């Protein structure tokens, strides 16, 4: 369908060429169906429960799991019929630019590194790296200053939690120094 053929009673649509179905939504539908099927399978594997348990442990799982599968089908149908998702707006969000996958990959890397290192190096070190890494990935290239800021934040928050709030975050590799 080209724009010339679009009638003028829908002026909001004919500004752009029809971009076709939002294919990524099929992926979401598949994921929902997977979670739904898994929930049903998991519920089927449960025992009947205690003698006085009127609502069986599997009951809610069956209902919710099958609902997810139904919703996944409905979403796939809606997608095929041209239903598009409205991305969420916000003060700092510019929905006209396409998704910046490089920044996202960078942040994902920072988070994975945090998960891998946090038990070993402790919060004071990993927190500083997390802040500096995220700020650098997000576009602030003064990485030395980011690292200093991150270290100040993480050490302050460690002492704040440990001393101020009585929440004993393990010191990790800095045990004995902090």
């Amino acid at each position, binding site marked *: 369908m080209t724009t010339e053929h679009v009638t003028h009673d829908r002026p909001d649509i004919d500004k752009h060429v029809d971009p076709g179905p939002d294919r*990524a*939504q099929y992926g*979401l539908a598949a994921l*929902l169906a997977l*979670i*739904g099927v*898994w*929930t049903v399978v998991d*519920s089927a594997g449960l*025992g009947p*429960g*205690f003698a006085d348990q*009127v*609502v069986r*442990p599997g009951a*809610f*799982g069956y209902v*919710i799991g099958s609902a*997810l599968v139904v*919703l996944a089908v409905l979403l796939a149908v*809606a997608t095929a019929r041209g239903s598009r*998702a409205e*991305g*969420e*707006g*916000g*003060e*700092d*969000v510019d*929905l006209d*630019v396409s*998704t*910046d*996958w490089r*920044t*996202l990959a960078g*942040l994902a890397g920072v*988070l994975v590194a*945090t*998960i891998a290192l946090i*038990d070993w190096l402790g*919060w004071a070190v990993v*927190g500083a790296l*997390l*802040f500096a890494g*995220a*700020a*650098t990935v*997000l*576009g*602030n290239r003064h990485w030395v200053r*980011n690292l200093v*800021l*991150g270290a100040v*934040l*993480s050490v302050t928050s460690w002492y704040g*939690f440990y001393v101020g*709030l009585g*929440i004993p975050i*393990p010191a990790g590799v800095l045990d004995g120094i902090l």
Partner: protein
Amino acid sequence: MIHALLTGFGSALAPENLLFAVVGVLLGTAVGVLPGIGPAMTVALLLPVTYNVSPSAALIMFAGIYYGGMYGGSTTSILLNTPGESSSVITALEGNKMAKGGRAAQALATAAIGSFVAGTIGTVLLIALAPTVAEWVVVLGAPSYFALMLLALLAVTTVLGSSKLRGFISLALGLTIGLVGTTTGQARLTFDNPLLADGIDIVVVAVAIFAVGEALWVAAHLRRRPLEIIPVGRPWMDRTDWGRSWKPWLRGTAYGFPFGALPAGGAEMPTFLSYITERRLAGRHRAEFGKGAIEGVAGPEAANNASAAGTLVPLLAIGLPTTATAAVILAAMQSYGLQPGPQLFEAEPELVWTLLASLFVANTLLLVINLPLAPVWARLLRIPRPYLYAGILFFAVLGAYSVNFQWFDVALLSLFGALGFAMRRFGLPVLPLIVGVILGPRLEEQLAQALQLSQGDVSALWSEPVAVIVYVVIAALLLAPIVLRLMPGRQGPERLEDQVDALEEEVRS
């Protein structure tokens, strides 16, 4: 009741509690002003901080954050014209026009004083209503609670948001997360992982969806051109502005409170209604609408804050959260072993009355602190975005890690953060998921209790009159849109978003 309230004031004005109220109000306003952070995210991020603070102090702080966040959001929408919270979309219509016309100080003043008036009246109504409602619901049994929770779940899913399908997807995902754990005696969806046996901590889910999801989403679409911020001095109003503001404040309050108190009322509808009412009643000032009419800021802002007070009625008296912030506050109360609802008024009267009194304190603090501090808040809008979002990720990871001090929670945080990103990408509303996680397990508990007493007889579910009424309401809620669509000559009910869009077009052209 007066006596109980006075005792509450005595406790709320104790130095320690007063300090928490000030901290809450300052934090709430700051994060309300900061782009990307809303009150729900702030309360979620602060949950771990409160593990070792007394429940009343924590709740006082959260109440301050809630009220402060509502107010801060209006500052952003007036000075920046890109409202962060859906409840301040309407305020931006006239507020930003006023600011551009050199009347930012008056716009901020009418928003601040209107919020104070609405918040105070709303709190009076809350104090009058909540104990009464609690007295009514205390006699209700499990069947009625089951029905009420079902209503709350369906209402937050169907009434708000532009797509019901996406609302239900979000709800189902939330309920699935709520299944994880061994509450029924058997391990459900735990993947044989002992770390999941206690279920997924609501703190981790809330922080991930609100904070990590938002940070990732903004990072992927970061606005490269800086926004235009209108400079502002100290807010003030002259005689004429007062004369034009006070009626809209009262009318806005009258719209806001009832909508907030209803399940799934929210703040969008009353702010919208308040705006169109003020425009209709503006008389000779009507021509100013679209160019910066003070009535168009005063009314919606009052409605916004009155609805915040209203949402505390179902939260405290029945234990039903109807906004994202209320849902997170409910999670906080549960982590203290407090069960909001009628029992709370009987078991913890001191806590309840201290909280209610502290709402007045928070409201007054907001007015006293925010009028002189407005230029400072405006400067917060200039914070470098890499630091802002790196800071959000930093505190999110800290919050998740401090739950159990294990990497596993940070991994869950990242996983649900990815889900939060996907939800923003696919237009899935956040509220049904959060309410689903919190109410899902309680729904199951009430059902089990109701059927246990009747030994499995399903008719017990409609054995109480309140339950029957609630089911009728649910049926009306689900069937009304279908019936309206089938009626000849009608296109079906207009969606609120479309109406707001149409209004924006009309006003801006």
